[in-house]
């Protein structure tokens, strides 16, 4: 009787396989899917590449308080502060970050920097495709981390003169 038992076991197993063929697909079609994330889906809370936010006037929110750098357990944030002047206004407060680097070789995406930020300047975006063959490319500069300027602000956005002249194209 063992033959019948064996056949029934196989049929039971294959039954699951056949049943699954009629269920909807649950895997994501990354990287062949649609949209800028190529089919990858995220929870809102996903901690990806950092984004340095701007305020409603297009000025940087970061005031170079160094709290993110102090909170960072892997010591991957490097900041140099400078003072805003009437001619060159970068942030809303007196001080701004002249240099703001995040070393993604070290970053562990723990989100402590975001938690520490008193001005909600640093946030986690959903970017995750950071892999590279070049270690040096993993040190991201402020220009690469900054959010794009609010396009809807148009002429109302307060930009500093220097930046107006050399309008950079920033990565999305």
């Amino acid at each position: 009787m063992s033959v019948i038992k064996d056949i029934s076991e196989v049929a039971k197993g294959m039954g699951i396989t056949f049943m699954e063929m009629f269920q909807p697909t649950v895997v994501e079609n990354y990287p062949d899917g649609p949209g800028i994330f190529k089919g990858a889906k995220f929870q809102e809370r996903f901690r990806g590449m950092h984004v340095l936010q701007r305020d409603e006037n297009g000025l940087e929110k970061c005031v170079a308080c160094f709290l993110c750098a102090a909170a960072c357990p892997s010591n991957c944030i490097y900041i140099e502060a400078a003072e805003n002047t009437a001619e060159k206004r970068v942030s809303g407060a007196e001080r701004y970050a002249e240099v703001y680097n995040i070393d993604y070789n070290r970053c562990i995406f723990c989100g402590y920097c975001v938690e520490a930020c008193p001005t909600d300047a640093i946030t986690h975006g959903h970017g995750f495709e950071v892999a590279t063959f070049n270690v040096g490319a993993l040190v991201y500069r402020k220009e690469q981390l900054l959010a794009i300027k609010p396009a809807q602000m148009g002429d109302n956005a307060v930009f500093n003169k220097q930046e107006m002249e050399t309008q950079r194209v920033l990565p999305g």
Partner: protein
Amino acid sequence: MPDVNITVDGKKVTAPAGTLLIEACKTVGIEVPAFCYYPGLSLQGACRMCLVKVEKMPKLQTACTTVISEGMAVTTDHEEIHQARKSMVELLLGNHPLDCPVCDAGGECELQDMTFSYGASESKYTEAKNHKEEQQWSPVVFFDRPRCILCYRCVRVCDEAMDVAALGIQNRGSGSVIAPNMGDHLDCEECGMCIDICPVGALTSGAYRYKTRPWEMNHVATACTHCGDGCKTTLGVRRSETGMEIVRGDNRDKSGPNGDFLCVKGRYAFDFANRTDRLTQPLVRRNGKLVPVTWDEALTYVGQKLAEIRSQSGGASMGVIGSNRTTNEENYLLQKFARVVLQTNNIDHQRTADFAAFAAALAGRPDATASAREVFDAPAILLIGNDPTEQHPLLAYQIRNNVRLHKARLYVVNSESVKLRRQATLFSQIPSGSEAAFAAFLAGGDVANGANRDEWNALRDQLRKETGLVIAFGSELRGASIASLNKFALSVQGAKLICLADYANSRGAADMGVYPDLLPGYVPLIQGSKFKAEWGTLPDAAGLTLPGMVDAAKSCKLKALLVVGANPVFRMKLDPATFANSFLVVQDLFLSETAAVADVVLPAASAYEKSGTFTNTYGDVQLVKQAGEITGTKSDFEIIVRIAERMGYDVAKLVPFGSGSRADMGQSRGAQSGEADRHAVWLEAQGLELKMNPFDPTAVFDEIQRLVPGYQVSRLNLMAGNDQHTRLDQNGGGAVGDPALIQPANDGLFSSGSTGRYSKTLNTVMENRNRVEMPKVAAD
């Protein structure tokens, strides 16, 4: 005073009568919070943070203004007190902007700490905060009015401790505002004490603002490199592309002889070290032009050339000029290098006070010199010549506060109407140049001209009645005058002397024997058998003095000259062609007037970039620690050792390394920033560490302590960062030289010899003081 017994939170406290409650609590480790109370300043009772419950008193009492009385029972930890403090913080925060992320004080702000300890996380106020624009009061003082909590510390420190009174209060009640004396800007000594004492970020420093944050820096406690007072200063340093950059000078370590005090130079004039025109590559003259070369090339060239000159023309044809700003170890090493390697006694430095005569006068007299700390406690002080307010800010501070807090009697004898006359019990203005006559009169002489006779007689009689008199004199008194002053000091019970010199280590240069006729510890050459035994060789004939070397250079007799951290061309107003026929090697920070005419220029590290010890003008020896770092420079110590090595000399004989007690292998034993490495201090003090490095200054300090008896101070205390008073009486006999050799620089509050010229802050402050008066604007 009789002791009073009180109870604080159940603990028994015994303190002298008259003690303030807040201080009595501190003695048993109970911290009572306060903004407006500051030890040493007058009482304000403005902030109401120090409220405590005193039994049998109806309301809460301010601990900072309550004097303890017998049987007092005090509670500092009670719900009612917590409520009161919470409300006080809430009121303060009613208008205090919450811009902590931007504020310079963020991280070291007393209001932040208090809010954490006592404050509520929310406020009942819905009104908008009253914003006012930030004001710049001087190149170094900025005032952010909304941040001010009106504790009046700045006003009191400026008025009482500094006697400048440049800050005041306008309006009353909640409309009160701190205002500068000139309406919209300050006219003051720019000492920055107001910034240092401000519990919040209302007063901020122009040199440091918005640069970094307190926890981002390393804090290095070292000695100031400017005037001869030797204040302890804490430098905040951070990494930069050139090495380590100094971003702040302040006084967070209040353990030095200066306590709370720092002047404009100590606080801001570290910036010469960060100049971009610092020399960072050795320069060698080729075809009449100085060209950059590698260290190896430059040192080999200097070594070969000096060895060649020594074998051809002998040591007597070579000279060495030492510095007032290099460490004791470097000075000692330099004179040893001159005497042992170059085989010449032609070594001198720019003398700014007659320490040789001072040592001669005081030989064999124990405890005859006063330390910087003693000035603050002395019952009476006699000041002859000098203007401490300008030239020795710490001395002036100590005197002022001694008079204010301890009611000391101050006698000022000066040819100018110096500012300290305001604190003087007796001020005698004497004709310029008659200081020596006054010293002779004190020693028992008579007054030649009759004009001052009665005044001088009365002064002398009064001085003789004093006990524990501290006599400070400037470079006006030299040679024999110092001896007569000492004769007078012997007639006053417990009198001590202070000889005032200009620069950070002028005393150290003198103590370490950077003299043509004196060995370390003021030992005359003929008595130098101890040194000969230690070093193996010692030239017998006295060498040339600084003017002597210049004359020899003019008459082409000086074949080689090594100048370490000095600028004789500028200071002595020499013709640049003076050294045209000498092989001139200059070690300096900048391409100074002397360096510009040199054959080889070696870029040296400043005193903030090396380790060692400094001796201030009072004779207090202090540790100098490395704070900054400029890539490409080397300490004078290392340069001298390397030149000796290239001249074929056995370096182990010059620096006794390998036998001593320290391995400087760059390891840190977990010391936190700003804190002494306790393990290293202990090992060093026990003599347990191996010395493996020929560039280790402590190896030379071992030799100094062995050969200069006055420097046998507690190594443990010294290494832990405390100032230690050296003894002059245990040293050699000194010598009375030509008074004309003493050339004081007469630097003021805003100048500091060649380093001062390269300080941007000092220059801006000076320009600002000389600018035309701005139109007056109503303060509000």
